[in-house]
C-alpha cells in the first residue's frame, strides 16, 4: 500500500473542499485534500497582513452555512462560533441615517421616522420574503432532479422543485415567479419609497453579479441572500470568530479529527485519466496521487477547462462552461485603524459599530456605480458594505485599535487596460475617499490597508475571473443549470470526477452545501467498490 493511494482526492482546500473531505472521512474513506496555497480556506481565510491586525481577507459575514453541517461535523467543538451582527446602518447624503436592528420594534420605529408607509410595508415585505425563502430553502439541501423530466423553459416546472408549488399559496407562487424575472430595483419600488432603504436592500441583489439593481433577475438574488439562516430560524448575518478563516480552520480541524489528510502547497496540474475514468491527479511538483474518486472544489473553469484535457469531455459541456458567467465585479479593502471611523450622520451609539454600515444611499447611486463598471472602469462612487470585526470579536485587533472590512462593488475584472499596481492604488483611494465623505476622520485613523481587486481574488484565491461565487448567481446558472445542463448532480462526464465547489448547486457563499452534497453523491456511487 503506497501512501499516495486514496479513496478520494479533493482538489482545493476551500471550505467546500474541506466539508467534502470531512464527510468522506466520516464515512470511513481515506481522503486527502490538496490545496495550492500555504493555508486552507480559499475565499474564507483570515490573515495578519499587518502584524496584530487580523483581516477577514475575502468573505466577511456568514449566514448560509448549513446548520446540519455544523452539527454533523461538530464544528463548535473545533472552535466555530458565529457571533451576532445585530444591525445595518446606512448614512444618508442629507446627513441623516437609516438603521435596521435585530429587534422588530426598534426597526419599525426607525423606518417610521423616514416613512410611516414604509414602516408598514416593511412588515409585510419581511413576511413575504420569509415565506418564499422557507419554500425555497429545502432546495439547498437536495440534489436538483433530472432536468429531462422537466421542461426547463417552464418556470412553473422550476417552481415545482422541492414541492414548492404544493406548499405555497397561489399568490406567493406568482410572487415568486415574478421575483425570478424582475429586477431588485423594480421590485423594491413596488414596496417602498425611502431611497436609503431601497438602496440598501437592493445591494443584496447585486452582490457577486455583474449586474445593476435595475437589471432583470437581480430580485431573485435578493431572496438567495434572504435565505441566510442562522440558528435554524430565519435570521440575518453573523460574523464568525476569528473572521471567516475561523470557519475554514474549524472545518479543517474536524476533517483531520475524522482522519482526513490535508496537504497545503500542493497545486494540482492535471487530473489523470485512464480508460475514460479519473484515477488520480498529477501535482505541479511532479508527484502523482491516485484515488478512485477525484473531487474538484476549484471553480468550473479550472475544474473542466484547465485540469482535464478537453478530449475527455463532450463538446457541449465545454461550450457551456466557456459561456458560464464568471465576471468578477467586487473588490475588498481591509483596513487597520487606530480609531473607529466616526460617521457624522450617526448618533453616538456604539452598538451600531457592532453591525454593518452600508454606503448605499439609493438605487440610483448603485446603478450609477454599475454604469462605470459596464464600460470597464471601477465605480467612482462605489457601493461599500462595511463591518468592524474588532467590535464584534475583540481578538481581531490589538486592544484600543480596530480592523474594518469593506466589500466594494463595482470593480470589473476586465478593467480597461488591465489591473496594475497604480489602478489598485487608485481603486483603494476611491474607496477611502468615498468613506471619508461620511466619516471624515477615517484617513488619519488608517494604520495600514490591503486593497483587493478581482484580479487579486483570482491570483490569491485562485478563482477564475475573480467572481466571488465561482460564477454569478443568475437564474440561468442555478439549480439544474449549475454549472451546466445535465451536470448539476455533482458528477461529470468523466467517471470518478466530481464538482464539489461553489460552481455546483446550490452555489456560492459560505454554505458548505456543494461540498456536503457532492460527498454524499460520491458515497452513493461507491467508486472504491468497483
Amino acid at each position, binding site marked *: 500500500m503506497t501512501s499516495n493511494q486514496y479513496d478520494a482526492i479533493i482538489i482545493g482546500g476551500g471550505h467546500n473542499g474541506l466539508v467534502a473531505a470531512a464527510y468522506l472521512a466520516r464515512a470511513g474513506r481515506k481522503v486527502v485534500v490538496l490545496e495550492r496555497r500555504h493555508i486552507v480556506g480559499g475565499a474564507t481565510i483570515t490573515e495578519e497582513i499587518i502584524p496584530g491586525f487580523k483581516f477577514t481577507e475575502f468573505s466577511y459575514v456568514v449566514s448560509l452555512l448549513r446548520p446540519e453541517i455544523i*452539527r454533523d461535523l461538530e464544528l*463548535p467543538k473545533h472552535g466555530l*462560533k458565529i457571533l451576532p451582527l445585530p444591525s445595518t446602518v446606512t448614512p444618508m447624503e442629507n446627513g441623516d441615517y437609516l438603521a435596521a436592528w435585530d429587534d422588530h420594534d426598534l426597526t419599525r420605529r426607525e423606518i417610521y421616522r423616514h416613512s410611516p408607509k414604509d414602516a408598514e410595508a416593511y412588515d409585510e415585505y419581511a413576511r413575504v420574503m*420569509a415565506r418564499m425563502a422557507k419554500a425555497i430553502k429545502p432546495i439547498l439541501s437536495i440534489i436538483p432532479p433530472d432536468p429531462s423530466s422537466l421542461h426547463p423553459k417552464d418556470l412553473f416546472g422550476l417552481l415545482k422543485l422541492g414541492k414548492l408549488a404544493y406548499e405555497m399559496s397561489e399568490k406567493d407562487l406568482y410572487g415568486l415567479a415574478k421575483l425570478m424575472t424582475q429586477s431588485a430595483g423594480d421590485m423594491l419600488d413596488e414596496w417602498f419609497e425611502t431611497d436609503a432603504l431601497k438602496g440598501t436592500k437592493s445591494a443584496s441583489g447585486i452582490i457577486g453579479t455583474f449586474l445593476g439593481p435595475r437589471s432583470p433577475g437581480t430580485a431573485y438574488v435578493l431572496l438567495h441572500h434572504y435565505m441566510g439562516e442562522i*440558528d435554524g430560524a*430565519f435570521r440575518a448575518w453573523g460574523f464568525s470568530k476569528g473572521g471567516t478563516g475561523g470557519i475554514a480552520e474549524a472545518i479543517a480541524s474536524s476533517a483531520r479529527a475524522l482522519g482526513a489528510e490535508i496537504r497545503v502547497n500542493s497545486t494540482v496540474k492535471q487530473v489523470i485519466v485512464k480508460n475514460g475514468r479519473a484515477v488520480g491527479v498529477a501535482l505541479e511538483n511532479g508527484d502523482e496521487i491516485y484515488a478512485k474518486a477525484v473531487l474538484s472544489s476549484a471553480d468550473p473553469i479550472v475544474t473542466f477547462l484547465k485540469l482535464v484535457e478537453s478530449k475527455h469531455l463532450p463538446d457541449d459541456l465545454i461550450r457551456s462552461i466557456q459561456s458560464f458567467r464568471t465576471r468578477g465585479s467586487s473588490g475588498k479593502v481591509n483596513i487597520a485603524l487606530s480609531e473607529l471611523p466616526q460617521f457624522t450622520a450617526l448618533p453616538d451609539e456604539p452598538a451600531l459599530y457592532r453591525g454593518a454600515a452600508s454606503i448605499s444611499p439609493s438605487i440610483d447611486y448603485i446603478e450609477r456605480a454599475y454604469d462605470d463598471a459596464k464600460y470597464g472602469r471601477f465605480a467612482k462612487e462605489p457601493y461599500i458594505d462595511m463591518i468592524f470585526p474588532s467590535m464584534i470579536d475583540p481578538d481581531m485587533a490589538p486592544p*484600543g485599535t480596530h480592523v474594518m472590512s469593506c466589500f466594494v462593488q463595482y470593480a470589473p475584472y476586465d478593467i480597461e487596460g488591465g489591473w496594475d499596481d497604480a489602478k489598485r492604488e487608485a481603486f483603494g483611494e476611491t474607496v477611502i475617499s468615498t468613506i471619508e465623505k461620511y466619516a471624515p476622520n477615517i484617513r488619519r485613523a488608517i494604520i495600514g490597508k490591503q486593497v483587493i481587486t478581482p484580479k487579486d481574488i483570482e491570483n490569491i484565491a485562485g478563482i477564475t475571473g475573480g467572481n466571488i461565487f465561482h460564477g454569478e448567481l443568475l437564474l440561468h446558472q442555478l439549480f439544474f443549470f449549475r454549472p451546466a445542463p445535465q451536470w448539476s448532480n455533482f458528477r461529470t462526464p468523466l467517471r470518478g470526477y466530481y464538482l464539489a465547489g461553489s460552481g455546483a448547486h446550490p452555489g456560492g457563499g459560505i454554505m458548505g452545501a456543494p461540498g456536503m452534497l457532492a460527498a454524499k453523491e460520491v458515497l452513493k456511487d461507491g467508486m472504491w467498490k468497483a
Partner: protein
Amino acid sequence: MLQLRHTPFHERTSKLCQPQNWRRWAGYLVAGSYELTLDREYWAIRNAAALIDVTPLMKYIITGKDAARLLDRVVTRDIGKLKIGQVYYTGWCDDEGKMIDDGTVSRLDESTYRLTSADPNLRWLSMNAVGLEVRITEVTDNVAALSFQGPNSRLILNRVADNPVDGLKYFRLMQNKVDGIPVTISRTGYTGDLGFEIWMEAKDALPIWDVLMEAGADYGIAPVGILAMDMARVEAGLFMIEVDYTSASHAWIEPQKSSPFELGLDWTVALDKPGYFVGRRALEHEKKEGSAWKMVGLEVDWVEMEKLYAEAGLPPQIPGMAVRASLPVLVGNVQIGYASTSSWSPLLKKYIALAHLQKPYYEIGTDVRLEITVEHHRQHAPARVVKLPFYEPEWKKK
C-alpha cells in the same frame, strides 16, 4: 411604596437595562437582560466577558472552632479536606438523603467559611449547630457579588487587580485588591466557561463595577442578565433549584424530591468521609441499590423536529432562550420522565434539555422522544440521552 430590594449595583444596572425586564431573585430585583435580544449577552459569556450581578445569592459566614464540623455535618462533601483558599460546590440533604439546596463552601481562613445558597438556610444551619462552638452570620445584604465570566475575563481582571489572577486555579479563591479596594476573587461561576466571582463589601460595589467596565471596554465586556446566563448554564449541564429540582423542604409530595445521585452529583457525595452527616444512611442505601431516576442531557434531533414543523407548514419555532417548563419525555407511548429546562444552544446549533429520566432509560445513547407543541398540537421530537455537560471549552479549567 413597597419595593423589592435593589442590589448595590442598581444605580448602574437600572440605567443599562433597555427592556426593563426585571426578574425577582430571592427578594431582590435583577436585570433579565440588558439588551432587547439576548444574542450579544450570551456571546459575551462564550466569546468575551460578561459582568453579571449575582448579589442576591444567599451568603453566610460560618466561623469558630467547630465551623468545619458544622459544615461537614450538613453538606455531602468532605469539608475536612477543604484547604484554605479552596471552594467546594456541594449539595445538602435532609435525613432521607433528599436535596434541600446547593451552593458553594469557601474556606476563607483556618476556621472561617463562606456558604452560598439559593434559599435561606440560617435556620437549618442553626438547627444542626446545636452544641457546636460556631457563629453563623448571614451577610447576603452586606456582600455584593459579581460573576465575571467568559474567555476574556482573566485578561481584564489582570488589568485591574493588584495581584495577577493567572495562578488562580479552578475552584480556588484569593484575596486581592481592585483599584485599591479589597475583594475576594474566586475562580467559580455558573456558565461552564472560564470565569470568576468577585465578592466585595456592598459599599464598594459601584467603583468595582465601573473599573471593570472600563478595563473591559476593549475586550468585549458586556453587562449580562440572568436570561443569557440561564442559557449558558444549561449548556454547562448545571441545574437550578425550583426549576430542575424541588427542595426537599418545599416539596408537597415525596416524588418531587431528588437525591444528589439522581441529579448527577455522585462526585459530591463523600460517603468515605468520617462520621455522620445529614442524609448519610439514606444515601449509602441509594448508592448500593442504585437510583430510580437520573438527570441527563437530551439532544433533540433537529432534522426530525424540523419535519414536524414543516408538516404544519412552519419553520422550526424554538424560543431563543432557556425555557423553564416541564416537558414530557417518552419511550414508545409511555412517559418515562420529563425535561425541566430546555434551551436553544446558539453555539451548538442544537435544541437541548436537562431531563429527569427513569431507570433504565437514563443510560447514555438511549433514544427517547420529547414533547413539543407545533401549532397548538402535541408532537414528539426524537431525542437522544447524552452526557453532560453539552459544552465544555478547554479553557474552563486551564
